[in-house]
């Protein structure tokens, strides 16, 4: 897994609550057996017309968001299905970090397994960021996992990430390798119970 230490990038906004994983990556694209190449299908029904042309009124199609690596959005992002295709699609499209007041649990967890950082911020800070991005075309932010701060032109917000998840993401560690360090304990448990 690619580590996440610090990124500086363009911020795109998606001003909607309860964005579900069916929107992030519609089900017709879940039939592939690879982990890559899902970016072209991200927000497919919202982003593209039936003929594949971009919908001009969908936020992420705005020219100023082209090349964004940070997504700013609202409550309960990633609710619904457990499909890991959702973070795969966001990542492949170019997003490395997502800022929201809250995330659905499974999606939140899935992000960390793919070198992507979801950041929870208080409601008022998210609203301030929306205003700031709205007023500053080409706005960039720095997401620093090492210092757990989000910073822009004249602002700096601290954020918190579970220390274990932070450590894994900073070092790009694979959970399976970590768990297998406890092979002896697993075997002991199995001999007693399973």
């Amino acid at each position, binding site marked *: 897994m690619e580590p996440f230490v610090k990124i500086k990038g363009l911020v795109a906004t998606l001003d909607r609550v309860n964005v579900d994983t*069916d929107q992030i990556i519609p089900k017709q694209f879940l039939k592939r057996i690879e982990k890559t190449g899902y970016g072209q299908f991200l927000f497919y029904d919202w982003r593209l017309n039936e003929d594949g042309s971009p919908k001009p009124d969908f936020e992420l199609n705005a020219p100023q968001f082209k090349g964004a690596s940070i997504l700013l959005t609202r409550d309960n992002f990633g609710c619904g299905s457990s499909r890991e295709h959702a973070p795969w699609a966001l990542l492949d499209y170019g997003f490395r970090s997502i800022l929201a007041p809250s995330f659905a649990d499974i999606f939140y967890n899935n992000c960390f397994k793919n070198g992507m950082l979801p950041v929870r911020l208080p409601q008022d800070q998210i609203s301030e960021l929306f205003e700031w991005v709205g007023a500053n075309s080409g706005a960039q932010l720095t997401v620093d996992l090492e210092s757990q701060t989000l910073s822009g032109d004249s602002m700096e917000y601290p954020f918190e990430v579970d220390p274990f998840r932070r450590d894994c993401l900073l070092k790009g560690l694979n959970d399976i390798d970590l768990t297998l360090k406890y092979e002896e304990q697993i075997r002991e448990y199995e001999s007693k119970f399973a």
Partner: protein
Amino acid sequence: MVHQEPGQPAILYIDCHLVHEVTSAQAFEGLRLAGRKVRRPNLTYATADHNVPTWDRSLPITDALAKLQIDTLGKNCEEFEIPLFGLDSPDQGIVHVIGPELGITQPGKTLVCGDSHTSTHGAFGTLAFGVGTSEVEHVLATQCLLQSKPSSLQIQVQGQLPPGVTAKDVILYIIRTIGTDGGTGCVIEYTGDTIGRFTMEERMTVCNMSIEAGARAGMIAPDETTYAYMEGRSYAPQGKEFQDAVDYWRTLPSDPDASFDRTVEVEVSSLAPQVSWGTNPGMVTDVTGTVPDPESFADETSRRAARSALEYMGLQPGLPITEIKLDRVFIGSCTNARIEDLRAAAQVIQGRKVSSSLQAMVVPGSQRVKRQAEKEGLDRIFTEAGFDWRESGCSMCLGMNPDILSPGQHCASTSNRNFEGRQGRGGRTHLVSPAMAAVAAIEGHFTDIRQWSNN
């Protein structure tokens, strides 16, 4: 629990791992790349359900990608020696229907599956989580899952349900009350006399939709109803071992004075049948109600969400729910495609005809459910009324197979999600109980089953 380092999530042993075709291929590939094996193939069970066609099983699968995914599951199960209830198996079905009916799901166990509706299995007092593909691979490789302690949410459901009002209405009402993120970070325990009277299938319907309230899992304490359901199931303990298991299961319920991080009380003795009007499972109202006015919502974010939902749904504020015209009816899914659901729908349908204005289909949750329904003659009740009677699978709950809505169509659906495009691009889903779907199929629009059954 296997082990926990200070400041780290617990390493939780997983007693049972259910696998399906859509979220497993990349996990098996990960194992291969790392040269790993499946640690406990005998604790792992697989089925093909999400994208399988529901027409005649002797016909070929025409969708090449779906076929590849199903074939890949078969190959992976062979290579890693995992038992598979494939398309040719008499036990094939939706993963959350077959786990319980085969007795694989058991009280006190930990269970995971790469599917969010794994919360269903909590109905047995099983700690059951939906996980992503990375965690599927993690469990395949280690038989363990890393978990931090969730908070606890007690939902106490009280009161005798009125006739015609069902477990589905109860869970829709709960989500309507606490919101689609009301359970985020929590494991829900459903308690109260209403839950105690529910059958196992009703409990599964409730626990199934815990994820729609954002919960990591939903559970119900095992009791006599649970033990009676378990007895004699193929994979459940048998004979003396079953008695020992029941003795153990009796130790599982929470203490009577257990404290929860939060408790929500729900009174259901005058609950009306529930119908969703919007694009998430919290956007629900009584069948006697009207489509809400977005301007009536408290904050701008909710107002905007409601406006956008109504635009997508093609509905006007103030329209009575009973005046929503329907094009399709779908009875199926891991929420409501068990035998009791089909019986409830068939009871309404018996001797009547599906409205000429719509198309209706029944997709049994499993081959076992299908056979039982056919034994009881339910298939004839449905087909004589004009329903399609299909083979088992997830079908139009998520439309990964050819069963999808056309743009603009309104569907009364017994499934669990009314997200935009869920049942087909532009499709408009209304979540209801099997009985409400059945009466809607006859009338062509939503109808209050309580009034109708009095006719």
